[in-house]
């Protein structure tokens, strides 16, 4: 079976051949032997052979892996305790995340900044038509006892402002759009 997995902007092409718990996995053409044992619905124990041209061909590296959908709808693979955001076959959002914000992450198309949690809009820091830079604070939402700045994911122009100071918003409410 063939999969395309994108991590940090880099696409890996993966072909899997299965034989019980053992898998021959070609990753961008390099084949690696994997033993995958399922722990539960979310967790796997992987034993991975050393990469092809290694001088220690017999090495068997062990990884504990957990797979989940995070609150923003992104697929996260924890390798040990290290979270890695992955996009499988081009799909960026899963489940309820579909109708929610795109976070502050960079991407193509308009950036729609939505409330990540219920709260109250404390300050709107930009105006319609304003040019903003990546990571510039756009709006402050108070929730969970903290004031939380939502920032621009990339450079652009503020094309829509739906946030109004002092107004309570639900999770997922669209606050600002940047073109």
């Amino acid at each position, binding site marked *: 079976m063939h*999969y395309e997995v994108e991590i940090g902007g880099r696409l890996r092409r993966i072909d899997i051949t299965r034989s019980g718990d053992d898998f021959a996995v070609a990753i961008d053409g390099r084949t690696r032997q994997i033993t995958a044992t399922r722990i539960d*619905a979310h*967790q796997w124990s992987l034993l991975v052979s050393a990469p092809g041209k290694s001088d220690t061909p017999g090495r068997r590296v062990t990884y504990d892996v957990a797979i989940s959908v995070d*609150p923003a709808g992104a697929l996260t693979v924890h390798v040990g*305790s290290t979270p*890695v955001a992955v996009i499988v076959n081009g799909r960026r959002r899963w489940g309820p995340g579909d109708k929610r914000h795109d976070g502050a992450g960079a991407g193509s198309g308009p950036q729609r900044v939505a409330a990540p949690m219920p709260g109250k809009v404390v300050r709107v820091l930009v105006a319609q038509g304003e040019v903003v830079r990546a990571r510039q604070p756009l709006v402050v939402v108070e929730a969970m006892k903290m004031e939380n700045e939502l920032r621009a994911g990339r450079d652009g122009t503020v094309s829509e402002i739906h946030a109004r100071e002092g107004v309570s918003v639900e999770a997922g409410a669209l606050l600002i759009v940047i073109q």
Partner: protein
Amino acid sequence: MRKLLIANRGEIAVRIVRACREMGISPVAVYSECDRAAAHVRMSDEAYAIGPSAPRESYLRIDRLIDAAAQSGADAVHPGYGFLAENADFAAAVRDAGLTFIGPTPEAIATMGSKTAARAAAIRAGVPVVPGSETALDARVSDAELVSLAASIGYPVLVKAVAGGGGRGMRTVHAPADLAAAVRAARSEAGTAFGDSTVYLERRLVRPRHIEVQLLGDLHGTVLPFVERECSIQRRHQKVVEETPSPVVSPALRARMTSAAAAVAKTVGYTNAGTIEFLLDEDGRFYFLEMNTRLQVEHPITEMVTAQDLVHWQIRIARGEPLDLDPAALLAPHGHAIECRIYAEDPDNNFLPSPGRIVSLRTPDGPGIRDDSAASAGLDVPIFYDPLISKLVAWAGSRPLAIARMRRALGEYLVTGIKTTVPFFTWLLAQPEFVEGRFHTTYLDEVLASRAGRPFVESSDEVEDVAAIAAAIHTALSAPANGSHGNGRAAAGRWKTDARLEGLR
């Protein structure tokens, strides 16, 4: 004391349940709507609903808490920290209902809860305070008066809410021109947050450390200080890492700071647990900052190095027992302890809260590790409260080993379904400034600003390969035909058990 109502939730409620169990006291929980199946409810003997999820409709409702205490027949109330823990009215209401409040008197809470009254107490005790205004500044103080006052204190000045805490209602001002606006902003924030918009001015020390002294005072006039806690690692004035002892406090300085702390507490006749916070400047001078009239979040690290149980002592003091401890032993730390506050926040997205359902949870354990937590897999981190998941404590014979142990424990910590600050701590504990103890209260904000949002985890090519492989295999084997059951041997076994149980009907 046979039954104790815990007027709180989350990890601190669980902490108090544990102390109750160890002392043969029956713990009584209260819960808001979203906390019906929370850990503190499940672990207590009794549990009472006190209203909707929003704190002001439940955990901040003095009337409902007193009602629950009456209904359960509790004879004491522990407020935990946060919520009503430093609310003098609550302490008074508990007392008026004929119950024992596990904490100081309402009078002590009221005095030390006012930053200006607390400063006055410190001055009476002969303890240096940060130069600042001696009285609260309400809206009637003119801008000109403010500028003149600030000039006499010296810039940079801090504008602070009298009723403040947690960095709210606080502004730094570097020049007279910015003063009036900062005071207005701080007043507004403080009014909203604390219902009290008065502020005061204070010299902002350059690169100070935040050092605090835990105290216990009994009902017989004894006040005992404990070895200091170092709490300089803060993000926006919120502590994120605490440790004891401080890497920069000598035994001589410890003797002076702990004596000063005890003197302040004695001045106000303080009883039960409390903490005196100091700023320590680069020249080794220390200044009284404020007093917290409650159990601190970071109390576990003190417990680890002194073998004392502070919650037990709170209860014993409230029962009238004397503090029969060797004062010298409390100042001689056994080993070193560090606490990381693990939050449901996304460190790579400006520490935005990340509430939601925890899918998988694996907590660290083994030598020297303590995890004070109320989280469990399948349950929610609610949106309504402080998103603290757990307080992870590492204890070891030395500071380097405690750091190594904390890093090991962070590597064992797995939380999926929500984002947490685990990757941030993994990064922080590897920073040379942290490892060498070279930091101050603005260190973290400065270094975070300088990183400009660069992710805390920069995974290697190999780890990314493994993540990609795992995602592909997981996708390939999670066939709809199998329902949610997957193909796993372990999983299959569990489902078989379910099927057996279903056969019961």
